[in-house]
């Protein structure tokens, strides 16, 4: 086990350095959530007047958790891209013939995701606070939001790592970001569940992302008694366990 922690530590340092190399690569995953927040908050503000919309909540505050969520969601694909680059360059083979714990290779990447999630999430949070959004669960709630987003992002990043390991195709892994959109929009990201059309509502109910978004939203808009918080954590932890296991099992595919 000590080998695992040792390898995890050093592989994490390598992965974290890659976040800033190059620095410009951070811009798209920060630009997109801010762009959508500004556009949606401005153009859909009248939606808060629709009967059934939560009382006393502005549309800006309603979609503020989505800005936090997408800041993390869009960056969770990076580890897969970095892994497929390692595979295609041949560097991954070097790692495979070193006396290192393979789980540490995955966890090194997960640490990168966590660090990037905190970094990007903090930038978006500062912007949200600057425009007047308030987190009703306070500082403990802010930590809980980051905790939930980090667990989710680490699990979700395993999807791209699994594709990287199984296909070893950089183009495919890079194009995976498009699946983010259906997962993001077939949820309660834009409107409360009871205001969604019936078919959409069914799909959103089965979309695990809905529960993560509702968890973050509950922490921003409601109080600790909201069961959406615990449901969000349960789904994020469940996804994390399953997706890490799938990514780990995909290591065999790298060897022919």
């Amino acid at each position, binding site marked *: 086990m000590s080998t695992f922690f040792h390898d995890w530590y050093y592989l994490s*340092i390598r992965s974290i350095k890659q976040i800033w190399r190059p620095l410009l690569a951070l811009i798209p995953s920060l630009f997109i959530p801010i762009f959508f927040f500004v556009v949606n908050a401005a153009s859909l503000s009248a939606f808060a007047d629709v009967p059934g919309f939560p009382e006393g909540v502005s549309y800006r505050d309603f979609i503020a958790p989505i800005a936090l969520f997408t800041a993390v969601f869009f960056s969770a694909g990076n580890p897969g891209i970095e892994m497929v680059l390692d595979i295609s360059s*041949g560097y991954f083979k070097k790692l495979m013939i070193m006396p290192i714990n393979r789980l540490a290779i995955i966890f090194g990447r997960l640490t990168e995701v966590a660090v990037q999630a905190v970094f990007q999430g903090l930038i978006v949070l500062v912007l949200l606070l600057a425009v007047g959004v308030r987190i009703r669960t306070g500082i403990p709630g802010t930590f809980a939001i980051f905790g939930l987003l980090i667990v989710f992002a680490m699990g979700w990043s395993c999807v791209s790592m699994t594709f990287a390991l199984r296909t070893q195709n950089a183009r495919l892994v890079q194009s995976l970001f498009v699946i983010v959109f259906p997962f993001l929009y077939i949820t309660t990201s834009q409107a409360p569940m009871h205001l969604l059309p019936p078919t959409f509502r069914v799909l959103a109910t089965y979309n695990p992302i809905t529960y993560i978004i509702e968890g973050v939203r509950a922490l921003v808009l409601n109080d600790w008694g909201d069961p959406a918080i615990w449901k969000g954590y349960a789904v994020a932890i469940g996804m994390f366990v399953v997706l890490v296991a799938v990514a780990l099992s995909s290591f065999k595919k790298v060897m022919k």
Partner: protein
Amino acid sequence: MASNIIQVRDLRKTYPTGTEAVKGVTFDVKEGEFFGFLGPNGAGKTTTINMLVDLVKRTSGEIEIDGLKLETDAREIYQRLGFAMQEVGLDETATAREMLQLHGRLYHMPPERIESQIQKLLKLVELEKVADRYTHTYSGGMRRRFDLALSLIHEPKILFLDEPTQGLDPHARKLIWGHLRELNKAGMTVFLTTHFMEEAEALCERLAIMDQGQIVTEGTVPELLQKHGAKNLEEVFLKTTGSTLGEDTVDPSGDPFIRSRH
């Protein structure tokens, strides 16, 4: 009499496409030996060397390295071997020094040992002045030399080299040959695959020539010349494989390790 550090028995590899890349290869490499694996492109050399380090799963056969078995002692084996592969795989987002430090750490070397090894190796491959540059800025020759340094960071007992001088200019090639000779003189076992006759003749104490997935002859250079009534190694090669060295063609199986000859 040195003991065998690598023992391979009836090693076979058949890819899912049905391509038989290696068809029952048996050989030994002695401790401290400079052993060469010579053969035309597509002979199965790279598949064999990749099976020896478990990068390619073998279909059947036995491999023992330094008395250890891959299936049960892979981590101990990895601690003892270095491998400079045909494809120079580097972390493009890191500098050479950072990569050497990371690898030293991952081999559980003490920090002061890592630093002294870094100094020594960068000097050896003449990259001291560019050690803090990102590896993506390196030329092909620099990348190959650095790859060799990287494979030596933990002072392995056995060094596997797969076509280590491919694509290098004559100066860089001679430079690497010199380093390899020194390492071998210092006691390191070197397992080299090459299709350069001159390289095999200049470096290897003993050679195995492989063709179409099988070892067709084996011995020291004088033994091979005598055995095949040849004047030089090239003639031995021609007589045993019936061919000259051809251009690379990727095998229809799609496996990058399997190549066929023109």
